[in-house]
């Protein structure tokens, strides 16, 4: 009996250890990531990568708690900035992109999208690195990226993967999203990917719908408590996000 208990305990411990996956990364590229939805917010970002896996972490560089309200006729718009740390894992072996917000209990899981990059003829130097230009349409935006073949790296900032060199600069055509590399370091870093089983899992599409619906519901609840005789209609709640579409 005693022997059996020991074995079971050991297996249980082993199971817990194996649930958290640990990855080794050899290189790290730092980015300044700008999100401009009416007000430009700087996010400090790090991309850790190896040949098979990448981990992209970003967070606003200041504590933005601003809630801006603007009045236009009878409409009111409210902007809330997400100040949490976001992490995006990509694993070629499992063909998965996993997105985790430190403020939430939701894991967004998707397959690694095949981005159809078009290489252009333009070239330019970015701080001594000879860069080629590429464009693609991804999740509702058209991105332009400058990448350097001198740095073999298939991974890009956020989810902009698939180019044969490291992306040193990328932006979309509305200038709402932009990335600028600020340094490249060799590193020997281990990072632990969170256990999927501990979170509620959703696809990108489900997540966008859930967030829209949740906010609309909360707004309706609040407005339902206004004085009788006051009629307020909630028009469509538009969420401005890096991903505008789910495909």
């Amino acid at each position, binding site marked *: 009996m005693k022997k059996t208990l020991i074995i079971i305990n050991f297996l249980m411990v082993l199971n817990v250890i194996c649930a958290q996956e640990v990855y080794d990364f050899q290189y790290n590229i730092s980015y300044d990531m700008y999100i401009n939805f009416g*007000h430009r917010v700087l996010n400090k970002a790090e991309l850790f990568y190896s040949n098979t896996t990448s981990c992209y972490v970003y967070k606003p560089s200041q504590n933005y708690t601003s809630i801006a309200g603007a009045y236009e006729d009878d409409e009111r718009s409210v902007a809330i900035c997400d100040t949490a740390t976001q992490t995006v894992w990509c694993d*070629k072996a499992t063909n998965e992109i996993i997105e985790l917000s430190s403020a939430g209990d939701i894991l967004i899981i998707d397959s690694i999208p095949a981005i159809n990059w078009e*290489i252009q003829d333009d070239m330019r130097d*970015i*701080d001594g690195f000879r860069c080629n230009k590429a464009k693609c349409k991804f999740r509702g935006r058209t991105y332009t990226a400058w990448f350097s*073949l001198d740095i*073999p790296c*298939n991974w890009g900032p956020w989810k902009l993967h698939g180019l044969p060199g490291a992306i040193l600069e990328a932006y979309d055509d*509305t*200038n709402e999203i932009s990335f600028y590399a600020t340094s490249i370091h060799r590193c020997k870093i281990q990072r632990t990917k969170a256990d999927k089983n501990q979170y509620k899992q959703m696809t990108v599409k489900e997540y966008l719908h859930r967030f829209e619906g949740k906010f609309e519901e909360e707004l309706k609840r609040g407005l339902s408590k206004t004085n009788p005789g006051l009629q307020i209609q909630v028009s469509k709640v538009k969420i401005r996000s890096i991903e505008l579409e789910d495909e």
Partner: protein
Amino acid sequence: MNKFLIFFFFFFLHIHIWGQSIMGKVTDEQSQPLAYANVIVRLATDNTIVSFVQTDYKGEYVIDVGIGTWCVEFSLLSYEKTNFTITIGEQEIVCRDVVMLASSFLLDEVEIIPQLPIQIKNDTIAFNVSSFLRGNERVVEDVIKNLPGIGVSDNGIISVQGKEIEKVLLEGDDLLGKGYMLLTKGLNVMAVNQIEVINKYSENCLTKDIINSDKVALNLKLDESSKYQWIGMVNAAVGVKNKYDGHLNLLKVAKANKHYIIGHLNNIGNRIIDDLSWTLNQGSQVGLLVGIEDDAPDINLERYNFNNEKVISGSSIWHPTDKVKVEMNNSFSVDSRNRICGKSQTFNVDTHSFTHHLNKTVDSNIMEYAGGIKTNICLYESSMITTATHLLLKKNKLVGNSTFDEQNFCEDLNNKQTLVLQSINYTNRLAANNLLAINAIYRYQNLPQAYFVKDGGVATENLYQKTQTVQNNFEVSVGFVSNLSKLSKIHLSTNLLCQSSQFKTKLLMKEQSYIPFSNHVYGLSLIYTFRSKNLELRGGGDIEYQNVKMGNLIKSYIYPIPFISLDWKINSKHAVKTIWTLARKIPEWTECFPYSIRTSIDSKQIGSGQIDLLSNMVGSVEYQYGNWEDIFLANLKFSYIKDYLFYGVEQKLNSDYVETQYIPLKGREMYSISGNVDYYISPISTNIKLTGSIERVFSKYRIKNLGLFPYRYSSRRIGVSLKSVFQGIFNFDLGSAYHSTCNKMTHFRYEKIHTFGNLFLSLKRFKMELNGSSFYLKNNTQHQFSHYFFLDSEISYNIEPNVCTIFIRGNNLTNIKEYSKDIFNEISSTHIIYALQPRNILIGVEYRF
């Protein structure tokens, strides 16, 4: 049978899918497959990337290519790059396995300075030039026009958020002062990496953080590949009827010196710089009394300027030692200009009205030289001496053939100008928080003008006149500034100005008249500044004693000039600026002298004969919402000016000329409201701009023997423009503006509707630009609008990108022959028609090195 059909189906499908392909397996030295290795296919001739894939988890790859010779490259982290070259024929499938050797990636750890489109650091906003290129830019001025918040006028004057800039620096050095358009219209745009807008610009680095400046300057930062060697551009174009346009500029920027040479010649109406004296950067000078050219129309200069201009200019900066900097510039210009216009001037006086008609052709020959040398010597770390010597020589001969109310006249005007400036400045940063500045300036100016008119070939007695203005100015000022604390500072200065002018005039057969004019000013200035994180409050003023002498008339005045200003950034979105001041000044001596001077064939001018102290109050409030990086930006400004005592005019109407005398009057008011809104429409990558302004003037004037009359002036302007920033092959600018001005007393109204459209097409090496501009003009005496439509175009082809370009340029393709303009004053309205340059087409080549 079915099996055969299936077999042949897949066989042909195989051929259709693959066509030409390269496939294989990538392994390491131990024959282990290498997953996710990059496979890149390039053209063997010029290394252009054609296609790329990654190996799968088994290390295998397949890549489709066309027929030809290709270079296939393999890369993977921790492995050495490898490649092979291969020639593929039609429907050929090549198998190539590759072994990659392990190697630690030798990339050093690097810090990268990101090239953001816009970076803001303290008072400097830096624009990354490559982010604002749309493909049709040639010179620096072309990309400056694309920068948000920056405007460029037709004559090259740059303004930032509506405020004119002081200068354009090159790598921190000033080569050309206010004559910077010689640089911005000549320098190749590809040589410039970044353009900085420097707010609160001060030429003297020792005054930084001590003296608040509201000046703005631009600084051009060159691409590294453009430094330490001569770079330049040569541009030559010829057209029909002997039209030509040529341009050359050379630039060298090294660590210890900079040199810039520009040469320009053309007869298609271009003028690279309006006035060479702008390169001297020495502020305003005495103006000319007599002029025979009429006001210019409000269209591009090259449309109505018949010229034959040649300009050459050279500027250099040396640093012979770490403590000494020497700046030198020399510019020379000759031009032969011709202007043709006809005007009808209608006078409305009381119940009477009459009209004069004047048709005129003016030929002018101008020769001009401007040069100077400036030396900065750093005595110690905290003190500096600057000396400057400038010389301007100008000669202009104008001949005008006129028909005035059916009578023929010939006007002859000879102008000369000599200007010598000598200045010396000493600055000492006594401590971190204290500054002492001593300035001394001497200015000598001589302006002789000889004007006569021949009537039927004979000089008329009343129309032969020689005038000469000689001016000597000497000015000394001593200033002391102290930062009392981190938040506040005091600025105390005293200055002495001694000014002496002489004016001589001689009319044919009459004695020469001579009048001396001298002005001595002693002033004391005290300014207090309070500054916190979001707020700057300044207040103070000057006390001045002025002693003015004109002939036997002597007047002395003591007066204060107070002011207060507030600059408040309420939060990240809202900002307010306001300023109020009570100003006083003595009139210009040309407004005072008591003699009658002929200023053109149909006008005379007399000064007041008095020396009055003029005064006015100026107040303005400006509100701004948003910043550079925001999608929405708005600006609103309100200004109010009240003149307590000003110089108005008394008009006397004679049969063939109008005599205007300056007289002191009380009570004139002006207010204006202007605003603009910028909004970036993301889905169509386009910025929409709305502008509007209203201006009102309430004044008065006198008519000889009839008394004082009120004058009401009104102006309204509203406009909208769209500017695209597509990343593709096509871009556009569209806009329209309505402007109306009105003399509310005579009910004369003038309206203008200006609509423009610019289309830009950029397809690899081929570029095309089409500019259309439409004007609808009307005054209230006309029943319908006059319409003018101008069309210009340019097509260019880059034979070698950024090196050689050929182009065809067409100006005034619709061949509009004339253009009209209406102006009015208190008692008259004038309709002027200008002759325009005809259609011309030029073929040219541009070479950059």
